[in-house]
């Protein structure tokens, strides 16, 4: 499943307080798990699976087997259908809660934080109980999965103990006073089940978050863009309505979701309720501009001249000579993906191509062709430098070396 190569350990995310590894026992929670499953709980749990994007990693039928290429080696996602032998059919509700909130599977097996338990830890026990009720109703699939294919020493699960001590801060979500209900719901969704920072927050060498949340991060040949209010590289120019449209349909006037975000839209956000999408948008629009991203155009004149003529020949038929795109193809003018400090995503798109997500509300799913066979590293760099510094865009020039590096990574399949 190379389409998922971007799902890396970088999806880990974590909160700011040390805690002991001893699982906390909660009598109230246990009560919730012993209650019989009502249809309403199953429906509610199904929606929790949407919010948590379970299918993004565990597959449409939740039977796992999806390979996540991480900087530490291969992880294959487990089968979470109720099959007793190969799935989680033997789990108790409490065992499921422990896995979701503390990253501990039965037998005291420590999960790798590619499973975003540090985010899921913020989910209320009621919601986790509903999710468990739902998971018990999906069709059991007998499919053994060899999960741990990481390189030594990362394949040693006990090492996660140290990681948890250093980086895992379980905390339930508490509302921030003075903020609206929508804002608080959005903050919960973004930082809790939605685990947005798994991709969009910069990571340290251990794959844990560092710096300011949601300011953009490179992962496996893509650059998950800045989601703060920065006007150049973030969502500063997007309205709440724009964000809702993007998450609900996979596209808006500024951009189209492709790559890893296409999967997030298809498996999760396009099934979220209008009020939840609005809450996410309200919260994101309130994030202060990062100031550190985007910034100065440094294109060499010759590069811009060459880039312009190459752009007109290779790109303008879809994206327009004015960079404004159309109802179908994304605009490049004002497109935050184009203006990130790191050009990984756009280099990758030019070299490897990409296909936009198709959703019920925007079913076309247009494709961007691979141009690797017809553009040299220097030509691709010139086009991107031109695109990144034209029509009001400003971003650092792209070098032929950067294009060559990403071309090499694509060839090696990382």
């Amino acid at each position, binding site marked *: 499943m190379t389409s998922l190569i971007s799902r890396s350990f970088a999806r880990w995310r974590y909160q700011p307080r040390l805690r002991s590894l001893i699982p906390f026992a909660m009598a109230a929670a246990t009560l919730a798990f012993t209650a019989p499953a009502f249809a309403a709980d199953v429906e509610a749990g199904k929606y929790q699976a949407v919010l948590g994007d379970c299918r993004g990693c565990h597959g449409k039928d939740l039977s796992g087997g999806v390979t996540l290429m991480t900087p530490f080696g291969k992880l294959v996602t487990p089968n979470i259908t109720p099959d007793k032998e190969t799935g989680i059919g033997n789990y108790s509700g409490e065992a499921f809660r422990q896995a979701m909130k503390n990253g501990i599977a039965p037998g005291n097996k420590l999960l790798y934080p590619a499973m975003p338990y540090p985010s899921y830890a913020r989910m209320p026990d009621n919601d986790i109980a509903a999710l468990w009720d739902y998971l018990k109703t999906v069709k059991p699939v007998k499919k053994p999965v060899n999960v741990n294919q990481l390189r030594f020493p990362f394949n040693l699960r006990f090492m996660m103990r140290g990681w948890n001590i250093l980086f895992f801060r379980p905390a339930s979500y508490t509302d921030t006073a003075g903020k609206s209900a929508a804002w608080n719901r959005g903050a919960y969704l973004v930082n809790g089940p939605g685990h947005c920072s798994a991709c969009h927050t910069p990571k340290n060498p251990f794959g844990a978050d560092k710096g300011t949340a949601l300011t953009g991060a490179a992962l496996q040949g893509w650059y998950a863009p800045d989601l703060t209010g920065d006007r150049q590289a973030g969502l500063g120019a997007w309205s709440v309505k724009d964000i809702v449209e993007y998450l609900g349909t996979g596209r808006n006037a500024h951009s189209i979701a492709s790559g890893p975000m296409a999967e997030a839209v298809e498996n999760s956000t396009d099934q979220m309720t209008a009020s939840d999408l609005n809450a996410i948008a309200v919260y994101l629009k309130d994030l202060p501009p990062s100031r550190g991203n985007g910034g100065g155009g440094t294109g060499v004149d010759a590069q811009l001249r060459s880039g312009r003529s190459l752009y007109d020949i290779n790109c303008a*038929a*879809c994206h327009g000579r004015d960079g404004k795109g*159309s*109802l*179908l*193809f994304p605009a490049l003018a004002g497109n935050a993906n184009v203006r990130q400090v790191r050009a990984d995503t756009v280099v990758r798109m030019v070299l490897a*191509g990409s*296909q936009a997500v*198709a959703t*019920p*509300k*925007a*079913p*076309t*799913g*247009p*494709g961007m*062709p*691979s*141009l690797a*066979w*017809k553009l040299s590293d220097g030509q691709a760099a010139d086009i991107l430098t031109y695109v990144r510094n034209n029509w009001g865009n400003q971003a650092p020039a792209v070098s032929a070396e950067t294009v060559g590096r990403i071309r090499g990574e694509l060839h090696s399949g990382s």
Partner: protein
Amino acid sequence: MARVLPKKDVVIMGLGWTGSILGEQLTAAGLNVVALERGPWRDTATDFNIGYMQDELRYAIRKDLFLPPALEAMTMRNNLSQTALPMRDYGSFLPGHGVGGAGVHWNGHTWRFWESDFQIKTHLTQRYGAAKLKNLQLQDWGPSWAEIEPSFDKFEYLCGVSGKAGNLKGQVQPGGNPFESPRGREYPNPPMRMPYASTLFGEKMKELGFHPFPLPSSNMSRPYINPLGIRMGECSYCGFCERFACGNYSKASPQTTVVPVLVRRSNFELRTECEVLKVNLTPDGKMAKSVTYTDRNGAELEQPADLVILCGYGLMNVRMMLLSKIGPQYDPVSGKGTVGRNYCYQTSAGARLLFDDKHFNPFIGAGSLGMTIDDFNGDAFDHSSLDFVGGAGISCTVTNGRPISNRPTAPGTPRWGAKWKQATKEGYQNAMGFGSEGSSYPVRENYLDLDPTYKDRHGRPLLRITFDFPDNDVAMSHYISDQLEKMTKPFNAKYAAVGRLKKGWDSVPYQTTHNTGGAIMGLDPSTSALNKYLQSWDVPNVFVIGASAFAHNAGMNPTGTVGALAYWAAEAITAQYIKSPGALVRT
């Protein structure tokens, strides 16, 4: 023995234009539909990559997207006295293959046949008397214009046709086609932007007193969102339409207008590389119960269904009916029987003009980019003193300036060497042309049946085409060539040549893929295989959709009418048949 699969409500053979429209309409009505497509899955993003789609050698010369004759060939002859021989390669016409069918590689000309076509016998008899139609098997199609017009509208809005209305609810509109039948509303998109050659043609035709208008085009003049929510891009005038798929999402095809929605429906299933061998009937032959097909591994399977809809290319629909004994074979000697009757083609001619000092820039092209006059089409002109009926649309389209095929040179130019190179250099910017798309009217001796000798790889007889251009159509075409001669005069070209049709249809050089008839709709079960809803008179749970249902071919491209018939039949099924299965027309 074929393995029997769980029953479905509907099984569709073929997922081109008609199959995808029927699939969409019937799944929207709640039916469980499975489509069996002989060719591969094909999708714009993955199979029609804009990075390599403009490969003229691969697609136009080596015909990468078309039906390989090894999968299904046909035999042909000009008349009953000859022995038909198989076409070893498709030449005269090129059937499509795979998801999207011929809707992938077409140009996008999207015409409506006229009210006078649907009532052709009544209309011509009233105007000229019955004697005028002797030797022709012209007959009325069934639906009235008021009935069929909304179906044209649906297809045009699905495709996002770019054009200019010429007759809005009876009011003739300036700039449109004054001869078209009344339409309920304007086209969804404005006309394409015209290149120089077409503009020049329009000006000259206006000077001659004719009525030029922009050819209705399923190439997008602007970005478009169709009623299913599917988005299309603006045409870039790249000149790679016919024989190519569009990598820009700018040419309407099943892929760019229906399939993305259809394949998401949970009550729809598509099985590709699955070839239908036969429709199985009940022992009394009065109902279809299933279809037998082979899958990509060669396994034989039987798919039971309540409703069988044949949506293959027209010729293949006819063959499937004959192989399955759905309706009686037409006999050209006795004139009895219905399946195979009224096979028609298209009757074309063209003019080429060469100048010294023009810059036509033919590389700025699109499949349906041009100006047309219909002053000599159908019955738009008086045939009282003429020895034929029918006519032709005359268009100046600029489709391409592709390097392999587009090498216009003056007559007498060597075919290779330095002089040829010099002539192609001069001719490239200086050549233009216009051509006629002429009607083809049915005669008793043109028909389709199963070949007695040649078989396919499954041992089934091939389809046999018996066809030659009828005297009526040759006379029509020569009259049109006379008009083309006159039309070339005001251009003051250095050189002008007009083609003239000859008797003796030749299946080798490409002419047109507009084969029609063989399973025609009509009002009388003794002269038509289908009733006016495209339902078999003989096996009422079989519908047969496509140009196979045309009772004659008019002087315009067929796809617009094929699309309209698909919506028309779908509506009959959803509004009438589902509620009360059985014959929709009682005899």
